[in-house]
């Protein structure tokens, strides 16, 4: 390699374990990018995903519960969880506690209580917007986790 091409070659980055930025990106949106040296981009991602998430809660969006009678709830709950531990706030806002599963027995008194809590949010005029914001925040963070993985493995500059 000539001296000129050495001077213009991009700096090589030390190899990074790709799972570390992925885990960090899940723990806090944008943290994976900050870990990879993209501080400004990571902070923008943090602001955008958190704004989307908290607007979802403020707009009466409801966290989804696993319900075997409604298979799509598995996808929605997985999507809710993708936003990271901060997702717990939406559980407390919706159900008043850490609930992830609808009791299988319809006669269980908890079913009526949980359904009633969701109905209270459904009555809000912004419920659909809130749900959309909450689900979008989860989808955004899934993309951020995959993006952090691609950057760490060198698939993306």
């Amino acid at each position, binding site marked *: 390699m000539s001296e000129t091409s050495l001077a213009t070659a991009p700096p090589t980055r030390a190899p990074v374990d790709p799972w570390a930025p992925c885990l960090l990106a899940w723990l806090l949106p944008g943290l994976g990018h900050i870990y990879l040296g993209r501080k400004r981009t990571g902070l923008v991602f943090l602001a955008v995903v958190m704004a989307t998430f908290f*607007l979802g809660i403020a*707009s009466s969006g409801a966290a989804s519960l696993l319900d075997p009678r409604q298979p799509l709830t598995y996808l929605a709950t997985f999507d809710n969880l993708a936003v990271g531990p901060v997702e717990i706030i939406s559980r407390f806002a919706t159900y008043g506690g850490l609930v992830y599963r609808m009791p299988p027995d319809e006669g269980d008194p908890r079913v009526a209580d949980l359904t009633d809590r969701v109905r209270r949010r459904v009555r809000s005029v912004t419920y659909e917007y809130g749900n959309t914001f909450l689900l979008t925040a989860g989808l955004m963070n899934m993309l951020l986790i995959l993006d952090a993985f691609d950057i760490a493995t060198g698939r993306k500059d």
Partner: protein
Amino acid sequence: MIRSHFLNMVVFSGLVAVFFAYLTQSGARDRLRVTLIIGGSMVVLSLIVAYVMYPFPLR
């Protein structure tokens, strides 16, 4: 809480546009361009779809 449908749509479009601009572009100018294109497209297309739906009520 934002109660206006239009404002909700604009805020949502803005957040999604900024997200994808930062995800897919690296330069500040490119990010701004992509933000405007995605955000503007989402708002304009939503309004077009809304007007197209207007003569076709569900019931």
